[in-house]
């Protein structure tokens, strides 16, 4: 069977649009609420990225850090994260889920144990922020055996030669970091420039799907809609923080935001 991630891209392409990928932190603001958020945004999001909160993140900006600290403070553990995914998948078997996190969390769980658990709970892809190529070769192979995509990150600092090697080894989906920034930074490069870089990468192997992330908001998403997929993370985490501050329901507010994001790329 085709990985649901590839199915989602296929569907978006048929509809002649970019796939919408959302990122939320597992357990933010509580275990129950983060499951509710996933359920409700899955109506409009094509692929759900679920963040494993970590307390020494080296690539996340303040919005995602706030979400992660909130989730950890509320007691989220690795097994709770798998439980959230299992519960979600019971109702949405074909909605693809990508787990995203830092390698220490996987190491402590045990690589094989972790992958088995990913498999049984229904995880379809993995992004490991601090496990770059070529260090990730062995782990990526293990993922493949479990029918899980290991998603390679590509950055504006990645040299052309390196891009080629990474893409050669990569699975069907890769993630292009739009600019030099932690997650959620202000978009300091013009969307046109981002797309120019995106096209260069795309040319190396047009069959592989490339999503763009970092700094994408309601305001900027429309200008990038010619990409295979677009990831929005910090803007959603910010919405959760804002809702909590104003004693509003994060589930409703985040769903509205995702609906709006979707409308901009249609």
């Amino acid at each position, binding site marked *: 069977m085709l990985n649901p991630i590839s199915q989602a891209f296929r569907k978006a392409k048929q509809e002649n649009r970019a796939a919408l990928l959302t990122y939320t932190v597992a357990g933010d603001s509580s275990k129950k609420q983060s499951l509710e958020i996933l359920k409700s945004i899955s109506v409009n999001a094509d692929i759900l990225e679920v963040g494993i909160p*970590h307390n*020494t993140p*080296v690539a996340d900006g303040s919005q995602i850090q706030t979400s992660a600290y909130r989730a950890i403070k509320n007691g989220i553990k690795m097994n709770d994260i798998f439980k959230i995914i299992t519960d979600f998948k019971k109702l949405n078997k074909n909605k693809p889920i990508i787990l995203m996190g830092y*390698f220490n969390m996987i190491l402590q769980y045990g690589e094989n144990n972790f992958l088995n658990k990913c498999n049984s709970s229904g995880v379809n892809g993995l992004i490991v922020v601090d496990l770059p190529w070529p260090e990730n070769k062995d782990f990526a192979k293990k993922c493949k055996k479990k029918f899980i995509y290991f998603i390679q990150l*590509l*950055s504006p600092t990645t*040299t052309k030669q390196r891009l080629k090697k990474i893409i050669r080894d990569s699975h069907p989906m890769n993630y292009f970091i739009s600019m030099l920034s*932690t997650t959620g930074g202000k978009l300091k490069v013009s969307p046109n420039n981002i797309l120019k870089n995106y096209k260069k990468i795309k040319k190396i192997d047009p069959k592989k799907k490339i999503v763009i992330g970092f700094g994408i908001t309601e305001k900027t998403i429309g200008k990038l809609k010619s990409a295979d997929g677009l990831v929005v993370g910090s803007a959603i985490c910010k919405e959760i923080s804002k809702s909590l501050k104003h004693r509003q329901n994060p589930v409703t507010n985040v769903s509205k935001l995702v609906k709006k994001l979707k409308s901009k790329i249609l």
Partner: protein
Amino acid sequence: MKLKKRIPLIDQADKFGFWGGKFGGNFVPETLKKPIEDLEILFNKLKKDKKFIAERDKYFKNWIGSPTRFIKLENLTKHVGGAQIWSKVVSDANGGAHKIYNATVHCLLAKKSGKKFIIGDTGAGYAGKMLSMAAKKFGLKCKIFMGAKDIARQQPNVKAMKKNGAEVIPVYSGSQTLVDAVSECMRYWVANCDTAAMCVGSTVGPAVFVRICGWSTSQISRELKVQLIDEFGSVPKKLKLYNCVGGGSSSFGFWNEFIDYDKKRCEFIGVEAGGPAKSKKHAAPLTYGSKIGILHGAVQYVNQNSDGQIEETESISAGLDYPGISPLHCFLKDTKRARYTAASDEDALSAYKTVTKFEKLRPSLEPSHAFSVAIKEAKKLTKDTIVVVNSCGDAYKDRGILEKRLGKKYVKSN
């Protein structure tokens, strides 16, 4: 896992940056791969370049003030009654601590790479103070990341950084100490690696930073070896080198030249921060059997929970208050070349009292940890044993804490 002879320890890592095939590495976001590779190429080239080494030595001698003193602590030796107690007074160095070596080398590297701006982390404030000094000396703009808790407890160094023209960025995330300062500094580099050079303040972080820092602080043991031979005619037959260990930069530098000696002849004792006697929290991952994990891009022993979240530490000394430890020290521990133990906050304070009572030396709270263990062990050792303690920092920065914990007389008496 084995140490190799006649190869500097910093160069014993494999092509992925692992020591002993296991510790260190480069667990970094893709964005940092290129800047790290660039820095590696530059460093590998320059560390073999005689002109660069001459330039480094010129600054070490004329600006930092090498060599720092190697002195016998006669009164303390008499009081303890056992081994001879000596000290390498690294706090003589310009700025008052060993951090100046690494800061100077990073600024030299930044200049060579054409960068005009350097960033760094700091715990006790020494790494930040020295980087701000070196940046000023070499005409670089400077930004220092420091935990909000450390800013409050190490004010003298914060003032010094600002006086040197550096911008001090308070870090409010997590425990608001060194661990968070390093994370924030790395994050800043992720977003600004095209214009900024990064200095990691200790022998921690991605492999190249471990190597640069170790290469820089090794000046301490190069000097010590010469001084030992001057004093005793040769490297003593029974030599014990005591050093505090936080990230591990001063201890590594203090030991590097002696690694090839048999440990029976030259023993290394690393003293970690055990934290308050009554607290379960500590900053001693090697002593208290912390598990192996990844922190700030490198595999190491690190305080963490079963899930892999990094745990908060506690220590009276901001400079040792770090949940992880250099991959170099993990390697030295697992190969049994060095022995590691811990001293509590109270032990360190009491050692500070003893040392300042008998000697005209004022070790900061970090080396006071090493003095505590050295004094205890020296008692049981023979007179022909040479105990050397690296007094790697001056207590000026700790005067607020010392006054609060010990009373005014201990601050004024020196």
